[in-house]
């Protein structure tokens, strides 16, 4: 098992490297003149040229990538002399439009995204799994049909639509909540909750629809397995049979999906963050596209993709925890 973990982590690092290279090359292939993008309104050809050199854009892509990697490990200094900009390790790049290191920008935005993801994750996982189990146990009856019908609707509605509808009714029409304005939870817990509750619920509904269906089909499958009959033959109460035997056995695909969904959410729920004006990674990415600010885009893309790769690893390790056949192989 120990060897397995080490091997998996090594593979993950390799993947991250490959990924960063791909992202780097892809963005350098964009037709935009990056140096042109880096200087503000008053732009002379001289400043552009100076920026080009400061950014190392005069070098080949491979060299640039190498410098980027060095920056990650050792930090990096843009330009020379008194005007030089220092970006401390780990340096993900520097945004000249915002005059800040990319990493700092991302870290500033991370909490909002993280809280949004966490809250929604807990809600949709618990809600989806519970509804899925309930539906499976009432297979074919009206309760099952109702849940399945609703989940199909939830599944097919676009998030911006639900988002706008709840804003319109809850905030504008009925004025149940103030307009969203994000604060950190330790600054003003009440306002934090008031801001987050709607995006949480909207995300939860969207995702729970999928988890309800997944859990239901998993449960229907495992409930027919022979070992479930054994568990019942022992005289276990049905609740234990379901929780301890059936659900555990059907967990693997749910864990996979949940892991990847969580990682995806960490990359920022772009539409909802924008609708609810949450200062998260999603809205950062949107503004970086609009400005446009390439270093931020590279940074956000890298971070998001890393989340997914890490989530994959965590999911695989969880398999081993869940299924001894994986662990003991």
């Amino acid at each position, binding site marked *: 098992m120990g060897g397995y973990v080490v091997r998996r982590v090594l593979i993950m690092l390799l993947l991250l490297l490959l990924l960063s290279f791909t992202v780097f090359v892809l963005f350098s292939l964009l037709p935009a003149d990056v140096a042109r993008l880096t200087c503000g309104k008053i732009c002379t050809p001289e400043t552009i040229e100076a920026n080009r050199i400061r950014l190392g854009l005069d070098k080949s892509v491979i060299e640039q990538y190498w410098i980027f990697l060095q920056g990650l490990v050792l930090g990096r200094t843009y330009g020379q002399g008194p005007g030089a900009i220092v970006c401390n390790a780990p340096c993900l790049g520097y945004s000249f439009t915002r005059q800040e290191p990319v990493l700092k920008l991302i870290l500033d935005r991370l909490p909002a995204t993280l809280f949004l993801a966490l809250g929604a994750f807990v809600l949709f996982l618990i809600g989806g799994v519970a509804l899925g189990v309930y539906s499976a146990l009432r297979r074919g009856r009206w309760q099952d049909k109702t849940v399945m019908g609703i989940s199909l609707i939830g599944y097919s509605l676009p998030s911006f639509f639900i988002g706008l509808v709840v804003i319109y009714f809850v905030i504008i029409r009925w004025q149940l909540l103030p307009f969203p304005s994000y604060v950190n939870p330790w600054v003003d817990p009440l306002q934090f909750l008031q801001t987050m509750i709607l995006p949480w619920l909207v995300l939860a509904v969207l995702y729970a629809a999928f988890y309800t269906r997944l859990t239901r089909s998993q449960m229907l499958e495992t409930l027919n397995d022979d070992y479930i009959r054994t*568990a019942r*033959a022992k*005289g*276990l*109460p049905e609740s*234990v049979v379901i929780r301890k*035997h059936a659900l555990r056995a059907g967990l693997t695909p749910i864990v996979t999906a949940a892991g990847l969904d969580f990682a995806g959410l960490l990359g920022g729920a772009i539409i909802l963050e924008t609708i609810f004006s949450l200062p998260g990674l999603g809205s950062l990415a949107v503004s970086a596209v609009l400005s446009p600010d390439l270093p931020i885009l590279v940074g956000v893309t890298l971070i998001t993709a890393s989340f997914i790769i890490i989530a994959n690893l965590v999911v695989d390790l969880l398999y081993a925890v869940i299924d*001894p056949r994986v662990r*003991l192989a």
Partner: protein
Amino acid sequence: MSAFLEVKDLHVSFPTGDGVVRAVDGLSFSVEKGKTLAIVGESGSGKSVTAQAVMGLLNRNFADITGQVWLDGQDLLAMSDDQVRELRGESMAMIFQDPMSSLHPFYRIGDQLMEAVRIHHKVSKSEARERAIDALRQVGIPAPERRVDDYPHQLSGGMRQRVMIAMALINSPQLLIADEPTTALDVTVQAQITELMLKLQAETGTTLMIITHDLGVVADMADEVTVMYAGRAVEMGTTDDIYYRPEMPYTLGLLASVPRLDSDLSERLDPIPGNPPSLINLPRGCVFSPRCTFKGEVADNRCATERPELLASTPGHLVRCHLNAAQRQAARESTT
């Protein structure tokens, strides 16, 4: 002696999209304490459904069950689900055909055994573990102190079936139902398991209901035999009645179609023609009549129009057939 398990007029049907499947249709039988009853019959004749109905394992939302199942003086079908659940695993236990899939793949066998103890008895974990180890030792698992921490996939098929038996017997149930306990195993392992079950039964005096289609296993283990066809008993009696004095044409056909190691080498098998009927659309009259080669001997075409009753031919030997004694005698002589 009085019956320990008595099933009276059991009906089980499943409403399905194609129609109602009458899996068990008016089945009655009984077993005395400490004896072994074998239920034989071909695939789909309702053997497993009967066993699951006795154990209360059928989901009543999807199955219509009527009749009575008396276990030690209590009617299980009249009890609440919870009451039956408390008897399950404690007074009556069951082992299944496929030991590969009957244990939960994610839990250690020790934990699965301990769970079976602790659901019915308030004992500490360490005591339950002791009992699990004892149970494994009893069924001949080597080094049970170490094996108890194994996962099912670390055991061979024969070992897993031993674990299943250990799990069924861990609370010393009075009734053990074994649904094809050796079918999925190799012959040499089959022989081990049969021997083990016989030994344990002799030690504990458990009443055994064994379900199988293997007439060899029946000859090895049973005191009484019920032959099922299309959801009903067509012949029942002592093992000797069924093997040496069979009367119902289906039983005759079954015995004549089994290849056996001690038969005359030049003989060809004598199969029953045709296929078993659909349980949704049972033939009128005798359910066996479409395949029966003796139906022509019964006057007035009664086999095709009138359902025969299960009647005693000699005390304790019940037969469901319109043939009279002489015709049955002749039928037996013509097939053996």
